[in-house]
């Protein structure tokens, strides 16, 4: 038979096989149920039955790239025996997502079931306004490191961490030992340090606020005096560090180190001894979610080891729960190891911040100080 | 029947400007009527109201008995329903079409078949002397030719009335003069009713059956070329049409020869034989007009009215006549003298004003 002898026949066969397979998968017991027993098995089975009726699901995040989302979707459908559920997904900046969902809530036209966002103040405000569904997943109890750092909101979410922390381009800086934030004020690194622009980004303002709990204002005055660069976008900072414009970042997310490493640039995160700010990433269910069964199952999956591992294949994330080694040794070495890109939070010194109490006034206050410190670029030389 | 009847037409621009101020006139079937006046007199606006390009504020327009526009009845036919032909000052030739396409446009718009249109286009082009140029790009023609295209386009579909909006003013003088006659001949040949707008009084005189003279949105005078020239009703008309002398005086007595007017500035009495169709009281201030060609340098010997003494101030030779300014007292009179006998400035002359050509104006 010729290789592409009869493409029509081939397509028809493939289609038949696909229909057959999916039908079979739909009918058979979901793999997850095999590992469960008792009440939990009954609970999940009931949710799966409900999810089949719902038939679709929508989630949005500022974290996962489309590829990661597709992989999670595929694995989830397989594991929960829900191949027919239609997934909808949006990846946008958190600000964009918040704007859209706020308006949808107001107009009573919420289109999303689950949101995974590193936007603690909004998420807490959503709790206050009764817009989040209370849900405790069996996985929640494992998020002890996140609980220690006060990142969880029990009953609503348990957190993974978005760490904007120090990063170094080792191809340029060599194997210098960096253990403290003060290492960056070393005069020989003058002009080589890049700072996220808190005056234009809430994320960096929270980073500044957090670091100020362990570092004095004078530290930042010195950073500014040493001609540190200021940039807004994470992607711009990554490009700049990769190109060697600056050597050290101070507000770099795991994802950007990862992108650099994949492209062959040895850019590594540093978790200084004074501590690192971790913004809580919550996977939450909307109170008015149209597909609550699906939402609960997906949140279970997101918070599980399996979900975390799947995510790590496509996008690094500092897990809020201790993680066992991944089946892929590269990922263990590359991401999960202590000197990897995104070790779980139990291995990092996180500055505890009571996120429920951080409001917009704090953002304003600390932004004002940042503006004051970094308001003018120092003169050259 | 294609009689144009305009009744009490009013058109305002904005809230203040009255472009057309309550005018009425008719154009009879087959008649060539000209709206004449300086720019801003409302003549073009009137024409555009008839074409349907402006919506009048009040008044009625009907053509051939069909009501086109009526302020009170709320009727206003759009231009395309009026079946008129119009020739614009700027020709309005569509640059994206050939000559034939331009001419066929109206025919097709009015539903003529392709074959029918072709025949009529050829005929129209022949009429205007452009046979065989149908395939040309219209914009590649000369100005005169373009205006002929525009004319052919307007007559091709045999409209009820032809409207002309200063069609010749973009042409050079020679061509303009030739086109005047051609245009009139064509219209007459086609037995069409035509309403023609111009600011050129010579054009109006040459072409029209009747002239309607307008100023500031109002009609000043209506009449055939002869009567508007020879019997202007007011100083505006007298002055606007041709060259004239306007003299101030006061009425004295009326006799069989006309009205005797005392003109102190000329230290003379002038007998006026025209413009007397109204009551003029003794001592009333009047304006008298007389054309330069009706003042003669060969006065009858008899003493009396209409006889003036003056000194030639300036004299310009025009070919068949001399155009002179002659100082009488402290005013200048414009006098046209036939013949080619030299007239020297400074020469003392005696003049005679033909009484039957002295018109008493109504303002």
């Amino acid at each position, binding site marked *: 038979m010729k290789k592409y002898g009869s493409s029509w026949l081939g397509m028809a066969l493939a289609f038949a096989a696909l229909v057959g397979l999916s039908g079979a998968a739909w009918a058979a017991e979901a793999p997850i149920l095999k590992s469960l027993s008792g009440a939990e098995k009954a609970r999940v089975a009931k949710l799966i039955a409900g999810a089949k009726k719902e038939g679709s699901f929508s989630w949005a995040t500022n974290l996962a790239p*489309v590829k990661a989302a597709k992989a999670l979707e595929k694995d989830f459908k397989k594991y929960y025996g829900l191949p027919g559920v239609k997934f*909808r997904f*949006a*990846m*946008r900046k958190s*600000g*964009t997502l*918040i*704007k859209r969902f*706020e*308006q949808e809530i107001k107009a009573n*036209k919420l*289109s999303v079931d689950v949101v995974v966002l590193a936007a603690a*103040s909004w998420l807490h*405000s959503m709790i*206050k306004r009764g817009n989040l569904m209370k849900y405790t997943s069996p996985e929640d109890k494992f998020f002890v490191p996140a609980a220690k750092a006060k990142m969880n909101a029990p009953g609503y979410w348990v957190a993974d961490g978005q760490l904007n922390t120090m990063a170094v381009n080792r191809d340029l800086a060599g194997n210098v030992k960096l253990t403290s934030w003060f290492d960056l004020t070393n005069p020989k690194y003058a002009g080589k340090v890049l700072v996220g622009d808190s*005056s234009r980004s*809430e994320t960096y303002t929270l980073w500044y606020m957090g670091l100020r709990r362990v570092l004095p204002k004078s530290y930042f005055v010195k950073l500014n005096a040493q001609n540190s660069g*200021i*940039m*807004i*976008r*994470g*992607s*711009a900072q*990554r*490009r700049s560090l990769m*190109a*060697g414009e600056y050597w050290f970042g101070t507000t770099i997310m795991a994802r950007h180190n990862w*992108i650099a490493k994949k*492209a*062959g640039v040895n850019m590594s995160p540093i978790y200084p001894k004074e501590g690192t700010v971790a913004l809580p990433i919550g996977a939450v269910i909307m109170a008015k979610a149209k597909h609550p069964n699906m939402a609960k199952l997906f949140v279970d999956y997101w918070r599980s080891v399996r979900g975390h591992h799947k995510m790590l294949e496509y996008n690094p994330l500092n897990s809020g729960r201790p993680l066992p080694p991944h089946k892929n040794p590269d990922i263990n070495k590359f991401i999960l190891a202590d000197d990897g890109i995104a070790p779980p939070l139990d291995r990092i010194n996180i500055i505890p911040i009571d996120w429920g109490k951080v409001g917009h006034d704090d953002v304003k206050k600390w932004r004002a100080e940042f*503006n004051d410190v970094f308001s*003018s*670029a120092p003169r050259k030389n | 029947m294609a009689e144009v009847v305009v009744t009490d037409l009013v058109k305002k621009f904005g809230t203040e400007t009255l472009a057309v101020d309550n005018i009425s006139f008719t154009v009879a079937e087959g008649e060539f009527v000209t709206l004449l006046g300086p720019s801003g007199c409302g003549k073009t606006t009137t024409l555009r109201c008839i*074409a*349907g*390009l*402006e919506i009048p504020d009040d008044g009625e327009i009907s053509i051939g008995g069909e009501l086109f526009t009526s302020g009170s*009845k*709320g*009727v206003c036919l*759009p*231009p*395309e329903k009026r079946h*008129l032909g119009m020739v*614009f000052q*700027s*020709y309005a*030739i*569509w*640059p*994206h079409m050939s000559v034939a396409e331009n001419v066929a*446009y109206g025919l097709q*718009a009015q539903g003529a078949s392709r074959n029918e249109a072709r025949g009529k286009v050829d005929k129209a082009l022949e009429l205007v002397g452009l046979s065989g140029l149908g395939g040309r790009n219209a*914009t590649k023609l000369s100005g005169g030719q*373009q205006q002929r295209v*525009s004319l052919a386009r307007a007559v091709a*579909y045999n409209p009820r009335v032809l409207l002309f909006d200063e069609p010749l003013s*973009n042409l050079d003088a020679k061509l303009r003069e030739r086109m005047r006659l051609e245009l009139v001949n064509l219209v007459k040949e086609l037995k069409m009713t035509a309403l023609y707008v111009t600011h050129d009084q010579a054009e109006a005189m040459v072409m029209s059956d009747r002239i309607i003279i307008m100023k500031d949105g109002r009609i000043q005078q209506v009449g055939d070329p002869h009567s508007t020239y020879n019997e202007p009703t007011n100083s505006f008309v007298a002055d606007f049409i041709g060259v004239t002398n306007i003299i101030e005086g006061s009425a004295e007595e009326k006799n069989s020869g006309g009205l005797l007017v005392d003109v102190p500035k000329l230290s003379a009495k002038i007998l006026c034989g025209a413009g007397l169709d109204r009551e003029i009281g003794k001592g009333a201030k009047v304006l008298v007009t007389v054309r330069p060609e009706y003042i003669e340098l060969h006065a009858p010997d008899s003493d009396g009215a209409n006889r003036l003494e003056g000194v030639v101030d300036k004299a310009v030779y025009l070919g068949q006549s001399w155009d002179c300014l002659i100082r009488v007292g402290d005013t200048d009179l414009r006098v046209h003298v036939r013949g080619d006998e030299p007239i020297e400035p400074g020469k003392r002359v005696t003049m005679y004003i033909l009484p039957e050509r002295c018109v008493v104006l109504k303002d």
Partner: protein
Amino acid sequence: MSTESDETQSSLKTGAAAAQAAVAPAPFLGRMFNAENLTKVGSLILLTVLAIVPITVYLQSSFRVHVEGSQLGLTLANYVQTFTEPKILRAIWNTLVIAVGTAFFSSIVGVALAWFHARTDMPWRGALEPLTLIPFFLSSFLGAIAWWALAAPRIGILNRWMIDLFGVSTPPFNIYSMTGIIMVMALFYVPYMYLFTIGSLNRMDPALEESARVCGTGVLRTALRVTIPLSTPAILSGAIIIFVVSAGVFGVPTLLGPIARIDTLSTVIYVKMEEYPLDLGGAAAAGSVLMLIAVIGLYVQRKIVAPRSYVTVTGKGFRPNRVMLGNWKYAALALNLAYIIMAVVLPLGALFLASINRAWLGGFRWSQLSFYNWDFILFSYDYAMDAMKNSLMLGFVGGFMTVVLCTFLSMVILRGRNKKLSSVVDYVATLPIGVPGLVMGMAFLITWIKTPLYSFPLFLLMLAYMTRYLPYGLRTITAILQSLGAELEESSRVCGESFIGTIRKVTVPLLRPGIFAAYLMLFIMFIRELPVSALLATEDSTPMAVALYVISENEALGVVSAFALVQAFILLVGTILFRRLGNIEKLSV
């Protein structure tokens, strides 16, 4: 009279007829319900829905303070903050400097290039035109990335060259500066000016220029004294739009501003719009500065332009001739080539080099040579391809609808009998350029989320694009219509052609270069639009610009560069296609 009373009597007998007679007399109805009025009323309704509603939402929100989940009563607090906070005032000042600089330089270059192409015998015109337009295909944000790679003080390719080749001791170029920002923006707005003016220059009667030449005026003086002033409506439109739009751009200052601590109005708005609780009121108040600028600009334009006549195309027709530049044509060519080098070769070259390096280490490295990025974009990333399909659909269909609407609106503005209505329409249709994209997206979301249309995101996106870019299309088309003698349409009406027929057979064919220029411009802008798209697009309706944003967040520079080049290529093909379709060359000959 008797028939009328008969009718009245009979109508009394039947209720329905009586009602009919009571509504309006038939002639009145006949006058109101013709194609002309229906079209005009239709486009006015569409304008209201598209522009007035979101702008009203926008303006009213500027008088409210937004807190978590709701808004407080009416207040002037936002305006007080905008005009008293030193940081914002400084930002406004910076914005004005950038906008003036951008509008000034891009106008000069853009008009000069348009004149070369439309009216002179500069060599290689046909080949150079698409190249000249290329910068327009990229967003200025990508231009900023490219210029970062070229002229960042420490790693810029040009700086390295200067240091290596000429032994300069300090890097000569610093893109992190006011000059840098203005240069990048001006380079990228030149094609706007070009597109705004090319139409009116193309349609100008050379007799107007020739008469000046006959009077003994030189080529350059003729251009400056006759040609350019006659294109004033188009040039002024273009300059004002560039001024306002460049004031609203945030991609460039976001990337190049912070290091030099340059704050602009757009970054102020950006911050207010990206946080929670969203400061829509503050953003709208700050943005109203932009809208004010737009309104003032339009007012000035109307004051300068309106009193004079700019009819350059009359029914007289003309024999198009080009100005013979003599040896100066090589100077023109040199200027055009210099522009292409600055705005196309250098930035696209930098992006290309980046696209064939796995990692961008501040310069092209043979060791980094890789086709990973191209393979990724072209063959292993469905997301990008789906996004291209969405964008092309939005560009072609949405652009077409906008052009149709703009044509009708420009008829209302320039040919309408009601002058007040005309100027109101002109202002309203111009306001959207004063609304920053981020805020416009929000106003749109607030407006449309309450309607069933919210379930059709692709359609919604199209409406949003139409609103946002309406002024561009309208300006381009009105500029051309302004140069078209009204008697060309009037004679068609008198010939018996209807309103619609006249538009179809006379107006549109004569406006064709302008319409296609507008269509092309809208097509490109639709495809590049980001802030509104990011807010309104869902997964299925993701357009290319959003995909590009997502990619820039998740992939290294090489992938972004490859995608940007693909986008530029698609738009280049689109442009050539448009030129063919529009027969623009044929019409301009």
